[in-house]
């Protein structure tokens, strides 16, 4: 069983600059910030290392950080430009009983994160959900389709903070 500081040191020694930092500011958990293009490699290390054995991904959640600048759209509503979208990975080891949270950030305009599909299969549907709700592209995901919204939903990504409901979907009025 290892605490977040020890895990952070282990990762720092192994991967150097791709481990961006340790956020201890949150009251209940410590978050390791990781580079979005190396998450697959780091995940595989976390799962296979004998001192870590993070064999289970509890949850993968997309988040809209809303840290860009607010601009007015042509119809007068607020839009967010710039800033980042993030993905949180909550990991747990069924063997060694320790937990850790990883976070990757990616630019809002071109959000791309490496898929961890081949490390934890839980990622499969969770990544599809993050894609569906935030438009984050998971590179190398074998089947990145919408999962909860209709497959032909064209009005954008609902959980982004600047999402606007479309007026019509296939000729049906959306706001009721």
């Amino acid at each position, binding site marked *: 069983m290892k605490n977040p500081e020890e895990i952070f040191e282990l990762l720092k020694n192994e991967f150097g600059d791709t481990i961006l930092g340790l956020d201890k*500011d*949150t*009251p*209940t*958990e410590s*978050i390791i910030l990781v580079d979005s293009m190396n998450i697959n490699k780091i995940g595989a290390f976390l799962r296979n290392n004998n001192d870590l054995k993070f*064999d*289970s*991904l*509890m*949850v993968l*959640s997309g*988040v*809209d950080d809303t840290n860009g600048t607010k601009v007015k759209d042509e119809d007068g509503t607020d839009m967010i430009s710039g800033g980042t979208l993030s993905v*949180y990975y*909550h990991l747990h080891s*069924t063997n060694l*009983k320790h937990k850790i*949270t990883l976070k990757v950030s990616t630019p809002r305009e071109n959000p791309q994160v490496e898929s961890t599909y081949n490390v*934890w*299969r*839980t990622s*499969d*549907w969770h990544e599809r959900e993050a894609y569906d*709700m935030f438009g984050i592209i998971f590179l190398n995901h074998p089947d990145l389709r*919408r*999962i*909860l*919204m*209709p497959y032909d939903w064209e009005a954008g990504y*609902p*959980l982004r903070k600047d999402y606007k409901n479309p007026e019509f979907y296939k000729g049906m009025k959306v706001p009721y």
Partner: protein
Amino acid sequence: MALKTETMVLNMGPQHPSTHGVLRLELEIEGELILSVKPHIGYLHRCFEKHAEAMTYPQVIPYTDRLDYLAAMGNNFGYVIAVEKLLGIQIPERVEYIRIIMAELQRIASHLVAIATNGADIGALTPFLYLFRDREYILSLFEMTCGARMLYNYMWIGGLSHDIHPDFVRKTKEFIIHFRPTIIELNNLLTFNKIFIERTANIGILPIDTAINFGASGPVLRGSGLPFDVRREDPYSIYNRFDFEIPTGKGLVGTVGDCWDRYYVRVLEMEQSLRIIEQAIDNIPEGDVHSAIPKRIKPPKGTVYARVENPRGELGYFIISDGNLNPFRVKVRAPSFVNLEVMGELCKGHLVADVIAILGSLDIVLGEIDR
């Protein structure tokens, strides 16, 4: 020359009695043999997570009821624990005891539905009626406590909506006395019934490493033989005070991790829930269930991930607070959502009729899959 065969695509659902809601399974079959299964979900999608961002923290609780509507107490429990962790408040002992009794009663009620529908799907209709009769006892206990039979809004941040009724303790004890023989009756009627065993043993075998890699939890994971239970591994509330066992699949009539094992784990868990209730029911301390409810709920900035053992598995709430009255982001780790992913692995090489047995043994609730 090899015989040329063509595969066929068969849609099961969205309207199908054994999909337990609106789920569409796209089966690729060759004759009766399943080559692949693709679940299509989202028919019940109502965007709980977006709603939650527009509500204050207490206003989210009724929405959590509607995730896993067969285990609404457990959903409330997970959410309030997450917010309480973020707030860092202490809960009165009385509230903790009542919460655990309610959660365990809910576990029994939920497992009764799971077992009953699993049997009914593959032709055993009598146990279905018997078990729903007993579920009524539990629902009346809940109705007596908070007025609702399914969607309770009972657990509040820092407390409970109502104290228990003066008759609650007596009636719960009556229920335990009544319910123990029902489990024996169930075992005679269904569990060790030859037809039921033929339909479920050695069907849909889930090996333990696959189960962990797919993130399965609850009876689906324990059926494969790993005694993993959040109540024991990561104790929340006051579960560490109670003595209970974690049943696992042993391959009693087939192979470890088959449909029958997942089914039987649920039967054994009901017995363990009764044990927890028995230990708690006589020790409920005096107190006021409203005393710790904060007047204004405004957690500090930060993130929290709290998980509880719901009847279907590990239910987690990931909440980000930006210091306002409403949550910045609520993400639900729904156990059914994760458990349904293994469906494709389990069905390969089985017959179309086995899909029904496998789906029944996974015990999904579409309300929390689609959220």
